[in-house]
């Protein structure tokens, strides 16, 4: 079960030697992301004259935690990922999503791509792709995800 947590606001600092530091504070649960960032920006502006660090970022984290934690259902390593590469709405724009520890049940066992290509016709993968295509997701440059173009296993470092 994923239990909601209070939003975590954070200001990132860097000193003259390049050392990073973070200041964190919890926010009330009803605060929206936009108003949280505005409040955090005001907080950062107030703190800036008090510190010899430069402020490099402000961020707010909304999250839920698994409680209780359940053991992993399989033995695959997290670095074995199922990479889904998408075409985006703008020409030449792409996006990628990697599923950690992709279960071998979703890897093709025959044909030229055996052991590498993902079986995108399997119901769970097809459902995941449907959620991403024409959904809320975009690439880091705000181009909407529109179509799957490749799906295969990647072993990330």
């Amino acid at each position, binding site marked *: 079960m994923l239990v909601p947590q209070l939003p975590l606001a954070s200001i990132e600092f860097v000193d003259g030697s390049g050392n990073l530091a973070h200041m964190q504070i919890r926010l009330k649960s009803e605060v929206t992301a936009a108003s949280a960032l505005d409040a955090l920006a005001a907080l950062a502006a107030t703190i800036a004259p008090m510190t010899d660090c430069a402020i490099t970022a402000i961020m707010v984290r909304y999250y839920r935690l698994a409680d209780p934690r359940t053991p992993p259902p399989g033995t695959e390593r997290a670095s074995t990922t199922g*990479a889904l*590469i998408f075409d985006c709405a703008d020409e030449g724009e792409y996006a990628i999503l990697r599923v950690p520890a992709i279960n071998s049940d979703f890897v093709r066992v025959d044909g030229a791509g*055996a*052991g590498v290509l993902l079986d995108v016709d399997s119901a769970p993968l097809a459902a995941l792709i449907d959620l991403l295509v024409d959904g809320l997701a975009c690439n*880091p440059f705000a181009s909407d995800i529109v179509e799957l173009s490749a799906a295969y296993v990647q072993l990330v470092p």
Partner: protein
Amino acid sequence: MRYTFPVDYAGAPCYVAALNRTMVPIVAGQMAIMEQPGSWQNADDYHAGYNAVLAYERCLMALCMDDLIASNDRLYRMLDTAIYGVGYTVESVDPLIVTPAIPPQRTLGIYSDDSILGRMEDLKQLLQNALNGTETPHYDTVPGIRALLQSIIDALGAEDTDLSDILAQLEIVAGLLA
């Protein structure tokens, strides 16, 4: 190390590098770090670099090879139709389904008289029939030019030759050659 994105990327040619299938997950996985902003000199380099890296990862197992295979199949079907006369039907465009499936081996034969082999067979039958008088599936005009010329020669050698008969034979020869 932070990279600067190549300024001549758009105009540069692509190279096809053979990669053992089992190495694809490892090589592609190594590219993940290049998808991070920290790998690039600035935001513009990151934007261009991110998409160039993903375009490469995409090609490793997807569209490039699929396009090549599809292009190869199109070429096969074009030659199969032109040479042998085998007809193909596009059942669906997306995904592309064409029937009949490409066979492992093409049996020698003529599947349409409009194919190259069909037209060559037609020419062969025409020549066989016209020259030798051989009856073929497409042509059954007899006798052939050789027989007619021989009969003209024979007639010219005879003493009581009727020129109108010879002219009639020559007209038939001319008709066969028309």
